[in-house]
């Protein structure tokens, strides 16, 4: 449906005027964008470019820090999702908003369930639900089925059906096809065509480039919270798009020499769990940083959790290689299905900095002191009794070497900025005798200044002979820090690049590639691990 942009009426349906959003850092920087009735506007960009934040502002889930919007000429500043929906602006979110224990029909009509004096009218409920399901080609689903019994793709379709209502003026779809089969995707596209014909404006958030070609009239590319370009889709090649998504200058760090890699410390052989991680093999070497790139949902976090024993692998193995300096000639120990628990991994000298430090890394209500010494309590205790003087000295040292900005080591970590929180997590692994440190998005939510300090800390750890594995959505960061970069897509490690061999284009192309489908473009296959 690559039709030319519909003739824009004099006034666009929605005007976004210099909208910006700050959390601790600026995530959206004065976006100005117009949306016309009856068009499909694709919103694309790398992870963290600001696509979701912008969509959420439009749909009332977040409020803008700066700027304003106008809907059909009227000032539009929805305070809540409910208010936006009343004005006909709806959003299908990536995270499903369905209540799994209720039926499909109840979910579809939630908030306007047909009733007589409070008693549910089942017949009317099911008739209305069936009509709504038919719109999107889901006639086969019985509206009385509990949502929890549907597959994830069908749940996604129900979520979409729920938002296809007659009063919709703007429909925002955030990565709607992430879990859909090709057949479901075409139903969705048919439905989008029907909506646009009625004058509904669609904002289609996706980084699936071939999909954008099929459906979008115009495409807006975001990068680092800024609008790079907004132009008709016709005439844009995939290369043009990737160029715009990436298009930044290469910093000096990206040209630094490769670190000298030591012996292999830890390796994984064909490790996997369900479909989330499949047959991943890799080697981590002392003194180098192994980067992991890939889209959100490509299995990066799951891989790190397997390597740490936070989840148990159901196939493959992990090998720990003894230090050749102290135990020359010793054979590596093989752990079938990886570590059994994080305790075992930590005992073997493997540490993990989790992706979500608030829910998995820190004890938010507790002090810096307690958080910093958590993973090595034996270092600050004798016969089970804590040695507070020793602990205080140790923590004072961390606060100074890492430059943690705080009132006192007794300050609760929850009150620190993201960067300082992450330094506390680092502190935990700093004093432990460690051989491997796994880092999952270590700089997420960390401002630029603190990032530089964290990079310096990672450099020092690598220089001291630790093997580091670092997952990041920020390609520039990986290209600056890593000596090798492995790219994950759909649960597989599809390519491994050596420093000097990669470019942002080749990394992105590998991340967008579909394993099992077409071959990852770029010069990657030589070092790509064998897949079964």
């Amino acid at each position, binding site marked *: 449906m690559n039709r030319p942009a519909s003739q824009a009426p004099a006034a666009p349906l929605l005007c976004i005027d210099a909208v910006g959003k700050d959390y601790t850092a600026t995530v959206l920087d004065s976006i100005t964008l117009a949306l016309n009735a009856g068009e499909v506007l694709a919103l694309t960009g790398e992870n963290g470019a600001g696509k979701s934040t912008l969509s959420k502002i439009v749909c009332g889930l977040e409020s803008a820090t700066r700027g304003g919007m106008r809907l059909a000429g009227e000032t539009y500043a929805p305070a809540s999702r409910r208010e936006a929906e009343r004005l006909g602006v709806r959003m299908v979110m990536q995270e499903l908003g369905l209540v799994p224990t209720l039926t499909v029909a109840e979910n579809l009509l939630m908030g306007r369930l047909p009733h007589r004096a409070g008693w549910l009218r089942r017949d009317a409920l099911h008739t209305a639900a069936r009509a709504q399901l038919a719109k999107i080609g889901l006639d086969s689903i019985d509206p009385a089925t509990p949502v929890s019994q549907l597959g994830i793709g069908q749940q996604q379709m129900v979520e979409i059906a729920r938002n296809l209502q007659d009063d919709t003026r703007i429909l925002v779809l955030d990565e709607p096809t992430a879990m859909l089969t090709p057949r479901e995707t075409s139903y969705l596209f048919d439905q989008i065509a029907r909506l646009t014909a009625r004058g509904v404006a669609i904002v289609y958030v996706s980084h699936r480039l071939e999909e954008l070609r099929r459906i979008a009239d115009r495409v807006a590319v975001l990068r680092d919270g800024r609008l790079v370009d907004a132009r008709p889709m016709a005439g844009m090649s995939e290369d043009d798009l990737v160029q715009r998504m990436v298009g930044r200058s290469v910093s000096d760090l990206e040209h630094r020499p490769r670190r000298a890699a030591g012996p292999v410390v830890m390796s994984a052989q064909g490790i996997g769990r369900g479909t989330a991680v499949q047959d991943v093999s890799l080697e981590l070497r002392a003194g180098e940083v192994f980067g992991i790139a890939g889209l959100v949902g490509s299995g990066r976090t799951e891989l790190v959790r397997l390597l*740490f024993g*936070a989840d148990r692998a159901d196939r493959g193995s992990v090998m720990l290689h003894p230090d050749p300096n102290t135990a020359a000639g010793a054979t590596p120990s093989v752990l079938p299905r990886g570590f059994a*628990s*994080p*305790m075992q*991994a*930590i*005992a073997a000298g493997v540490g*993990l900095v*989790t992706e979500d430090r608030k*829910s*998995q*890394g*820190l*004890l*938010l*209500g*507790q002090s810096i*002191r*307690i958080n910093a010494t*958590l*993973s090595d*309590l*034996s270092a600050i*205790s004798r016969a*089970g*009794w*804590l040695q*507070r003087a020793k602990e*205080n*000295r140790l*923590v*004072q040292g961390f*606060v*100074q070497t890492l*430059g*943690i*900005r*705080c*009132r*006192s*080591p*007794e300050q*609760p970590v929850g009150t620190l900025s993201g960067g300082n929180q992450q330094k506390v997590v680092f502190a*935990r692994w700093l004093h432990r005798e460690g051989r491997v440190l796994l880092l999952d998005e270590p700089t997420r939510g960390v401002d630029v200044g603190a990032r530089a300090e964290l990079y310096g800390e990672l450099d020092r750890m690598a220089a001291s002979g630790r093997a580091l594995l670092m997952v990041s959505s920020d390609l520039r960061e990986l290209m600056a820090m890593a000596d090798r970069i492995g790219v994950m897509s759909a649960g597989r490690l599809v390519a491994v690049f050596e420093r000097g061999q990669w470019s942002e284009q080749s990394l992105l192309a590998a991340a967008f590639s579909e394993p099992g489908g077409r071959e990852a473009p770029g010069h990657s296959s030589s070092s790509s691990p064998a897949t079964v």
Partner: protein
Amino acid sequence: MNAPASPAAVAVAAPRPTPAWRSQLGTYLGLMAVLAGMVALFSTLSDYFWSVETFVTIANEIPALAVMAVGMTFVLIIAGIDLSVGSVMALAAATSAAAIVQWKWSVPAAALLALATGLICGTVTGAVSVAWRLPSFIVSLGMLEAVRGGAYVVTDSRTQYVGDAISWLSAPMLGGISVAFLIALALVVVAQLVLTRTVFGRCVVGIGTNEEAMRLAGVDPRPIRVIVFAVTGLLAGLAGLMQSARLEAADPNAGTGMELQVIAAVVIGGTSLMGGRGSVVNTAFGVLIIAVLEAGLAQVGASEPSKRIITGVVIVAAVIVDTLRQRRAAA
């Protein structure tokens, strides 16, 4: 830490850490003020409240409640709950009474049996909830029923008279203070030290705050959970001994509903039901507040219904005040 900070280091140099008790000072003072206020109120309302007799009564009532509240504090800090302590207390009292009266065991052996009974009950609660990942609310609710049934079996559903074999434990000595009171006092001190000064205590607080973060930091939460419940059971067993020493009898209905009194004392002391926060010393204040409230209301001649209404209001009011204080501190 004693070295003078150079001006350049001021920005990053961490100030001298505050001792843990200082951050708790506000709560201590608040609870003490509530306690003093209640004593003052009852003293003006009743001519007899401010007397040695009242003091002795309170000092005698407290130990069993205090000992169980110490264990419950740990349970609440790991975000659990143990509803079975009242029943476990009754069963422990019943087994020790049966041992002394029917099986003619020596007093120390019977006392050990009571403690072992409590320990086993607590371990079962902890182990079952950990092994099948069940909420401790459910498991301990089941234990509450099952153990109560056990107490009926052991006592043949009749009150067992123990006589004065162990009454020295709860008999008031000099100044009305009993051995049981001293044991409870010592336990409060030791438990507070364990909570704040040991690796175990640190892990307990950590697990209550964020169990997954503790697991990923290399601490296995499972044994710690079991130990907390096991110790709470053991302490309920001790409370059973104290109770049968004081009453010189083991009643199969003893301690019915006492779990709620124990939880109330802990909660009044500011321990969070959501876990991660609590103090044994504050729990002791909570125990005192409940005991003073009960004795005071009895002294002023409050009827049973109004006693219960007032107690209920005090519990909720105490928690509201504590919550507001915590929120202000966090802001």
